[in-house]
């Protein structure tokens, strides 16, 4: 119970609280303002980073949608005999009776497609059904309709063009010039680049790319093969099996193998040791159904020079003003020891070089690779400063020569 004096006491205190507002003195106001400015910079940086992430995610989703559209278009074309949407594709198939083998067809969203069947192809089998999970877009000929059977034809893409395929639950975008030969457990690829989005599937699926094997269960990743094979994982994780040894790349990571000579995606010769063992009896398959086995591993290359030496090379190139050579050397540093401090510094320098060339997207991509770098803390300040400069659109200087 309350009495009058209690109510009066409460009202008096409450009135006093409201009557005399607390004063924020100038020192405290300035102190909070300084902290606020620092926090706002962090907010801006995070916004820039998220833009990069969304841009990458947008590219991947766009590719995934395009791949899905391509598969649907091919299925519709195969069922109706009418044209599907997309660019004109050339289909070179061996079967004389197949509609797809008669010449020009429209298929699969984008890209010039050439279905190159193995030599001495037999009569074309029936047109595969749409339920075939492993069919390549445009490969509507020369393979039987089996729900589990992977496509057994190679797909080639012209230079500067691309094609979307559906292979074993993976949406694959192949950038030309290049060729892809499906195998039971994956594909053998030799192309300028490749984007793989495999959101489902527990069975390992492997891509043999120029002597490198990439094994994936569920992941989204890209393979670039400009100067050397580089795999960047956007979602999930993949195992990169280089001639020098395997390594696991997780989401946001990127790694490469040493450059090797380009290897055609045609079936290679059997390994020498295979002739020393009695071969198990195999049913004779027609040549059109033969599956190219995985490429044999290449001999291990000589060990690369230590990252410090590579970095010294990059610094000397910067000193000469040879930015191209500097970039190559910095990339070599990153490839030689991806988790090293040298690699972290090299990524910042690569981002600076890209920013100097006006390639903001590439600069942000290099900086994004630092997000999960074990030595991120060592280069956090210059990386954040660079991101801030990119956000403001400042002109960027090249990394300072020694």
């Amino acid at each position, binding site marked *: *119970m*309350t*009495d009058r004096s*209690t*109510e009066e*006491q*409460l009202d*008096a*205190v*409450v009135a*006093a*609280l*409201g009557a*005399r*507002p*607390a*004063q*924020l003195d100038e020192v*405290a*106001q300035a*102190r*909070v*303002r300084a*902290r*606020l*400015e620092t*926090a*706002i910079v962090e*907010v*801006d940086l995070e916004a820039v980073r998220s833009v990069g992430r969304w841009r990458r995610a947008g590219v991947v989703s766009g590719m995934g949608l395009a791949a899905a559209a391509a598969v649907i278009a091919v299925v519709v074309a195969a069922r109706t005999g009418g044209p599907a949407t997309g660019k004109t594709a050339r289909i070179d198939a061996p079967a004389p009776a197949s509609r797809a083998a008669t010449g020009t067809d429209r298929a699969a969203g984008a890209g010039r497609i050439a279905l190159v069947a193995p030599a001495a192809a037999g009569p074309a089998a029936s047109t595969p059904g749409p339920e075939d999970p492993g069919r390549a877009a445009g490969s509507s000929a020369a393979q039987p309709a089996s729900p589990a059977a992977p496509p057994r034809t190679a797909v080639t893409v012209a230079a500067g063009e691309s094609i979307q395929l559906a292979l074993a639950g993976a949406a694959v975008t192949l950038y030309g010039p290049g060729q892809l030969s499906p195998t039971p457990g994956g594909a053998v690829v030799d192309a300028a680049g490749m984007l793989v989005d495999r959101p489902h599937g527990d069975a390992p699926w492997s891509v043999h790319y120029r002597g490198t094997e990439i094994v994936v269960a569920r992941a989204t990743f890209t393979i670039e093969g400009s100067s050397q094979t580089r795999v960047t994982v956007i979602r999930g994780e993949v195992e990169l099996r280089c001639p020098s040894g395997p390594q696991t790349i997780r989401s946001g990571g990127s790694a490469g193998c040493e450059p090797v000579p380009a290897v055609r995606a045609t079936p290679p010769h059997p390994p020498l040791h295979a002739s020393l063992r009695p071969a198990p009896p195999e049913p004779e398959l027609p040549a059109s159904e033969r599956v190219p086995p995985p490429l044999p591993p290449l001999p291990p290359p000589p060990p690369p020079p230590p990252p410090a030496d590579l970095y010294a090379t990059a610094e000397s190139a910067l000193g000469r003003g040879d930015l191209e050579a500097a970039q190559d050397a910095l990339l070599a540093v990153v490839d030689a020891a991806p988790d090293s401090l040298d690699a972290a510094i090299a990524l910042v320098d690569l981002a600076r070089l890209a920013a100097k060339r006006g390639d903001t997207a590439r600069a942000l991509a290099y900086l994004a690779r630092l997000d999960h770098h074990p030595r991120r803390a060592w280069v956090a300040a210059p990386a954040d400063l660079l991101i801030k400069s990119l956000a403001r659109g400042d002109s960027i200087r090249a990394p300072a020569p020694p």
Partner: protein
Amino acid sequence: MTAAQLAIAAIAAPPDDALIAAARDGDHAAYAELYQRYAARVYARLTHLIGPSGDREDLLQQVFLELYRALPRFRAESSIGTFIHGIAVHVAFDHLRRQGRRPRHFTAVELDELIDSSPTPEDCARRRAELGQVLVLLDRIKPAKRIAFALVAIAGLSLDEAAELVGTNPDAIKQRVLRARRELLDMLARSERARRQP
């Protein structure tokens, strides 16, 4: 500064809308100007809501950081002042909820911030004790009721104004204020009885 100088300064100062538009475009100076205009008022509002706590500076920073994030969503359906104070209310609510209903003890310096200079030291000590007691009891009230009580009974807002800041209807605010007051009076009475018992 004279009244005329103040009037000129007020005329020369850019309106809030212009500052908001500039801040949205990344003009940090415009945002700093917004901060200068509203920081003191938000600080006073935070004092009403959580008492003379040392956490107010952190919460002030948090309010303006949330405002910076929320500016792109600001549609000018209310004034920027109301928008900022609404953020302050939510920041204070989260703070009180995290802190729980453990009573805090304020220092004399913190309490003196809210007490008028009294004619005698005895009078000052008495007011300080009463204020400290009420603030401790306020900490025992649920945050939603405390926020409503602080906005209406301490800050003197109308039920409609408080409801707009909290994001509820005036009837709910009224109920919360009445319950908070009843709880405070009960606790004060119990405290008084305990003090009188030998």
